[in-house]
C-alpha cells in the first residue's frame, strides 16, 4: 500500500493513504481482539512499531482491502465523517460499533518532517488502545459477523453511486437495523489530534449483548 514517503501527491491523498492504511490495520486488529474470527487465521505482524494481528485469510483480506479502497476517495474529498466497524450477532443486530470519527482541517499544512512521525505516534497509540479494548468491553456472543459502514457528509452518496471504484463492489445504503443500536453505551477509546487529521475512536456497545 501507500508509503509514507510519497511527496508528490497532494495532501488529501496523503491523508487518505495514511488513514486507510491505519484503518486496515485497525480493522484486522478489531476482528482479532473481538474474536470475530478464530484466532488461528491471524498472524502477528509489526506495524507502527508495535505488534499487531493480521488475518491471513485471503478473502477476508480482499474484502477489507476493497472496502477501504472504496473509502479512500471519500476521505480524500473529506466526505467521510465516520467509518464504523459494526459487529453484529447472529440475528444481524449490532452489538458493538467501533466508530472512527474523522475530521480533517479544511486546509492541510504539512510543514515539517517531524509531522509524519508525530502522526505515526498518534496512530500507534490508537492501535495500542484497540488491542486492549477488550478490557472495557463485554465479550461478544458467538457467531458474530462484521461489516463496515461509512457515514458520509452531505450528498457524497449520490456521487458514489455514479462512480464505482471497484466494479461489482458497490456501496449500498445501510439498513437502519445495522446502524441503530438500542440502549447503547459509549466508550471512548482514543482521540488523536494532529495537523492533518483529527480522529477519535469510540465504541458503542449494546448494554445487553446476549439477548
Amino acid at each position, binding site marked *: 500500500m501507500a508509503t509514507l514517503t510519497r511527496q508528490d501527491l497532494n495532501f488529501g491523498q496523503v491523508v487518505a493513504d495514511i488513514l486507510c492504511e491505519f484503518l486496515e490495520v485497525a480493522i484486522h486488529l478489531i476482528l482479532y481482539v473481538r474474536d470475530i474470527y478464530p484466532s488461528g487465521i491471524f498472524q502477528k505482524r509489526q506495524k507502527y512499531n508495535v505488534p499487531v494481528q493480521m488475518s491471513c485469510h485471503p478473502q477476508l483480506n480482499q474484502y477489507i482491502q476493497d472496502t477501504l479502497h472504496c473509502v479512500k476517495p471519500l476521505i480524500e474529498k*473529506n466526505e467521510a*465523517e465516520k467509518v464504523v466497524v459494526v459487529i453484529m450477532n447472529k440475528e444481524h443486530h449490532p452489538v458493538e460499533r467501533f466508530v472512527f*470519527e474523522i*475530521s480533517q*482541517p*479544511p*486546509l492541510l*499544512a504539512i*510543514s515539517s518532517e517531524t509531522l509524519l512521525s508525530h502522526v505515526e505516534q498518534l496512530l500507534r497509540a490508537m492501535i495500542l488502545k484497540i488491542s486492549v479494548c477488550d478490557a*472495557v468491553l463485554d465479550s461478544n456472543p458467538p457467531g458474530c459477523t462484521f461489516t463496515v459502514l461509512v457515514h458520509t*457528509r*452531505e450528498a457524497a452518496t449520490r456521487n458514489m453511486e455514479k462512480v464505482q471504484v471497484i466494479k461489482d463492489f458497490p456501496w449500498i445504503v445501510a439498513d437502519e437495523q445495522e446502524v441503530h*443500536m438500542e*440502549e*447503547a*453505551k*459509549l*466508550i*471512548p*477509546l*482514543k*482521540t488523536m*489530534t494532529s495537523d492533518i487529521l*483529527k480522529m*477519535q475512536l*469510540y465504541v*458503542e*456497545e449494546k448494554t445487553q449483548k446476549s439477548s
Partner: protein
Amino acid sequence: MTRLAEGGGKPTPQLGQARSLSMSRDGWRKKASENDGWGGQGGYMAAKVSKLEEQFQKDAPREQKKDGKSSCIFSGVAIYVNGYTDPSAAELRRLMMLHGGQFHLYYSRSKTTHIIATNLPNFKIQELKGEKVVRPEWIIDSIKAGRQLSYIQYQLYAKQKGLNFTRVSGIEGQDPSSNHGPDIKPQPSHTLSKDVLKSTQANHMANYTEKTDHQLDIRLRNGLHSIISEVDAEKSRVNGIHDDDDDDDIACSILPRGSQDTLLTNGHVHPVNGALKPQDFADHHPHVVDKASNQSHLPQDKYREGEEPCCSYTESKANSHLRSLISAASPAKQPGPHNMQTDLHQKPTSNSGTLGAPQKASLHDQTTVRLNGSYHVTSNSSTLANSSNQSGKSSAEAGIISEFFSHSRLHHISTWRNEFSEYVNSLQSRRRAAGGAVFSGREKLKKLKANCNSGSLMAAPQVRQSCVLHVDMDCFFVSVGIRHRPDLIGKPVAVTSNRGPGRVAQRPGANPQLEFQYYQNKQKHYRKEKTDGDLEMTPSPQDGEVPSNGVHEDLAALSMAEIASCSYEARQAGVRNGMFFGRAKQLCPDLQSVPYDFHAYKEVALAMYEILASYTHNIEALSCDEALVDATALLVELGVSPDELARSIREDIKEKTGCCASVGMSSNILLARMATRKAKPKGQYLLRSEEVDDFIRDQPVSSLPGVGRSMSSKLTSLGVSTCGDLQQLSLSQLQREFGPRTGQTLFRFCRGLDDRPVRSEKERKSVSAEMNYNIRFTQVEEAESFLNNLSMEVQKRLEGAGLRGRRVTLKVMMRKPGAPVEPAKYGGHGICDNFARSVLLAQPTDSGRVIASEAIKLFHAMKLNVKDMRGVGLQVQQLDGSHADPSGQGPSRGRSIRDLLLAKQSAHSPSKESPSQDGLISASSSRAFSSNQKRVTPALSPPPSTSSSSSPPPSFTIIDPMPGTSKGDYHHPHTPNHVRACLNISIEVPSPSQVDPSVLKALPIDIRRQVEETWRYREEQPSTSSHYSTPPRPPSTPPPGPSLVLQLPNQPGQPCTTGIILELPDFSQVDPDVFAALPRELQEELCSAYRNKGNAQAQASTVVEQKNSFPQLKQPAVGKLKRRYKKRNTSPAKNGSSPLKKMFPGNSPAKTSPSKTLPLPLREQDLKCPSSLSTDVPETLPKPIPRPAPTLAGAHEFSEIRTLLREWVTTISEPMEEDILQVVKYCTELVEDKDLEKLYLVIKYMKRLMQQSSESVWSMAFDFVLDNVQVVVQQTYGSTLKIT
C-alpha cells in the same frame, strides 16, 4: 328613573318617587351652593338631630303599643346604622324603639354607642377607630335572647378593639350639648358633604359586595371598580330610614336626608381591619358611567370645590374621579331614602314579616362580589367624557395606579416574600457585622438538650448529613383569622372577602356559562387521557371543579369571591383554596367566612420568621407563611435530632403566634417540602434518606415542583401518575418529551434528588407591575396614560430596589375573540389572549418616563383594540444596580452583545422587508458600514414592531447604540483606530436603492425616520459625524476588509425568522488598547464572535455544522460565569497561552481566536504584542484556524485539568453552582470538540474525586455534571457514556 327609585327594593308609590327625585336635585344644587354656609348654619343640624330624637321618643311608645311586646334590653344603647344592613335600618329602628334603645340618624361620637353595619369601606373603618361596629344580628339575637348580649361576638371585624366598651346607660343623658355643645355644630355639615362621599362609596362597595340594590348597581356597573368588600354576612337595608320630618321640612330635608342617611349609615366605622387601612381607598375609586350623572353635572364642580377643604381623606388628590362619580351617583341614591321613608310610613302598620318579600327579591338583585383580590382601579373614561376636567382625570389615574399597588392586598402578600427575604438578608448581614449572633432559640434548645443529656449521653444520632426543614403554617390565613375567635375553631372556615350567602346578581354582558364551558373544555382537554375521569367526576364535583372554579349555569349567580384559604374542616367538605365562595357555600353550607386581616398576617409571619431566626440564619423565605431552613450545621452544633428541632420550632410558633405550623424535614428541599405535605396538619415528619425511595414512589407527580396541570396531563398521557411511574421512564425519554432541562429535572426530582441549596440571599431578575383587574379602556389615550402611570409604578419599584433595567416588556391581555365582553367575575379579565413585546433600551433605566415612552411605542406597535384590553403589565429585566453606573455607561453586568442582538431580534419582529433582505445579507455585508457605525442615539433603539408577526424582521434598523456610546467614552479622540474598533459591531441598513419604497412607506413613521436619517447620515457623514462624541472616522479609511455574515442562533422559543447580521472587521484591525478598555463582557463577546467567525470559515467547506446541541445547558452558563478558576490559577497566562502558541506556531496571535471559556489569554497576548495588532493594513482572508481546544479555566492539558479538579474538590467543601456549570460547559465543549477520550478521562477522574469526597454535595455535583454530559453525548452520539 323608575328603577332608580326602587332602591329600597319595595314597591313605592310613584308620586313619592318623582318628588324625591326632583327634590333631591334641588337639594343638591342647594347644597352645593350653600356648601360653605353649612358650617355656619350648624344650628340647623343640631336642631334637626334633636328633633329626630324627639320624634323617635314620640314614636317609641306608639310602636311598642302596636307591637305589643317591648323590653328595655337596649336601654343605654344608641345605634347608628351605617350602610346597608339586614334587617334594614327601618326595621332596626323599630326594634330599637321596641326594646328601649336609641336610634340615631346621625352619627355622634359622643352619643352613639354602637354602629350597625354589615360592610364598611376601609377609610371609614379607619375613621371609626375605637368605635364599636357591630353586625345587626347582635340586635336580633339580643332580642331573641331577651337580654343584651355581648357585642364582641358580633363585631364586624374581628380585630376591633372592644376594650373601651363600657355599657353606659347614661350615654343618652350626656347628650347633645354636653361636651361639644357649640363647636360640634359646624362639624356635621362638614361631615355631611364628606360623608356623602363616603356613603356613595360605601354603596358602590356594597354593590360589589353582594347585597346592593340592583338598580344602583346598574347605574354604577359600567364604571364602578371594585372594591374589597368587607361585607358582613348579613343583609339589612338601611339606606334610608328615618323619621318623618315635619311636612314643611321635607322640601329641604330630602336632600340632606338622602345624604344623611348614607352619612349616618356610612360615616363612621371602626378601624378594624388594619391592613386594609390606608390602602383600600385606592380600591374604591369608582368611575361611573352613569346616565344619572347628568343630574349631577351642575352641582358637581362647585360641589367639589366646596368639598375640598373638608375632605379629610388623605388620598383626596387621587379622587377627582371618585368625586365625579360621587356627585353623579349620589342623586341617584337619593330616591332610595325617600322610598324608605315612604315605606316607613307604611311600615308601622305592617309586620316585620313584610321584610321577607323584598329581601327575597333583592336576592336576585345582588351584584357580583369583588373577589378576594383587592384590586380595582383604572379608568373608565366614558365617565370622564362627561366629567369636565381632563387634567383632574389624569392625575387621578396616576394616583390610582400607585395606590392600587401600594394598597392592593394580594400585591402586598406577594411582596412579603421579598420583604422576608430581605429580612433574612438583613439578619445575615447584621450577623456578619456583629461577628456572631445570639440565637435565643438555639440557646434554649441547647439548654434543653443539656438537661436531657445530663443523664444519657447516647442521644445525638445525627449523622453529618444535610437536613432541610420546611416550615409551613397550617392554613395560614384561616388560623390567623380565627386565632382570636375560638368559637370558630374546628368549624369549616374560609377566608374570603365575601361574607354573605354567596349569591350575587348577574351582570348583563357577562356570560359565565360561556366562560365555564371554556374552562371546562380546557379541562377536558387536560384530562382527556384520564380513563377514570368520568367515574371520578360525577360523584365528587369538586374534583372537577376545583381548578375551574366551576360556575354552573344555575350557579351563575353565586358569589365569585375567591377563597384565599380554608380550614381543614372545610377542606373535608370539598372546599378548596381558590374556589369561589358561592360554590363553596353550596358544598359546605356551614362554611363560615372570615375577613382578611392583613396586619395580623404580617404580624404572625414576622413572628414566625423571628422564631426561625432565633435558631439559625440559614433561612430562605418562600412566602409569608413558608420558609426553608438549612439546619445541617445547626443540628451538628446542637447535637439534636431534626425531630427535636422541629418540635421546638413548632412549639415556639404555637406559643408566640397562636397558630400551628407543620414541619417537613429531609435531606433536600424537594423532599422536605414533600414531607411537609405528609406532616400536615399540625405535625412534623422526618423523611429519612433510607425511606426516600419508598416514600417518593407513591407520591403523585403533581406534588413535584414544576409539575403543573399541563405537565401532569402530559405525564398522564404517558401513563405516569406517581413518581414511581416516572422513575420508570428513562432520562432520554423524559428529555425527548419535555426538553433536556425539564426532563433532567423531572428525572432527578422523581428520585428525590434535588441539589438546590437553601438560599438566604437572592437576586432579583426583574421588576414588574401588572394589572389585569378592571382594565376597561375606551380610548387609546386612556391606555397611554395608564401605561404612563404603570411606568411610574415600575419606576417606584425599581427605585425601591435600587435597580435599573434595560429590557422593557409590555404584556397585554386581550379579550379572546368570542369571549363575552363582561367576564363572569366582575372586573375580571375573563378569557384572554396574552401578548408580549419587549424592547431593549440603550441604557439601563429606572425612569418611568423612559419606560413609559417605550411601553407606549410597543403598545402602538401591537395595534390592539383598546376596548378589548383586559390586562396590562410592564416588566423590566436585565437589571443592574442603579448606583453602579449612573450615566448608563458600559453595559450592565451579565449583558452581552448577543443578548442585545437577540433582544433586538425579538423586538423587531415584523416588517415586510423580506425581498430585499436576502440580497442584503450578501450584498451589503461586504460594504463597510463605516458611516453609520457611529450612529449612536438612544432614539435609534429598536423600533417597535409593526403588528403582524409573520413577516421577517426589518433588516435595516440600527442595532446597538450601546456598545458604541459606552466605548466612545473610553476612546482617545485622536486615534481613529479606536473608533473603528469600538464600532465594529453594527447592523446594516441597506442602501436606499435596496429598499422597496412602498415597504418603507408602510413602516411606522418613527422607523422610517430612522432609516432615512441613516441614509442621510451616510451621505453627509463627514460633516455630521462631529456631532457624536466619538471622533470622526477619516473618510479615507478603507473599509474593514473581509467581513462576515454571522447567523446568530435564534433564542429558543422566540419565533424569529432571520438572524442578525454582524460585521466584524478583521481582527488585526482591532486596537488592543480599545479592546482592553472594553468591559469584560464585551471583550468576551467579541472574542467569541471572532472565534465563531473562524469556525464559520473553517466549516465553510465542511458545511455540515454540528448544531448547537445543547443550548439549554450552555445558555445559563454563559452569562454569569465568573471565571473563578482564573483567580486560583496562578499563571493563567502561561497556562493559557503556551498551549495556544504551541498549537498554532505559524499564526499571529492576533488571529488566534480565544478559547471558548477564557478569553483571557487572548487579551493578554494582545497586550503583550500590540504592535502586531495595530497595523492598519487590512489583511487578506485570515487563514483558517483550527478550532482551539476547549479549556477549563485556562487549563488545557489533561494533567492541568486534573490538578485543577483536584484542587477544586479538595479545597472547597461545597461546590458553587457556577463552578459546576463551568465544568459542565467544559465537558460539553469536549464533546463538541470530538474529544471523547479526554471527556471520558475527566469524567472518570471527577467520579473518583467527588465520590470519594466526604461531602455528599460533591457526589451530587458529580451526578449533576454526569447527567448533563450524558445528555450532550446522547444528543451528539445517540448513546450515553459508559461510566463504570
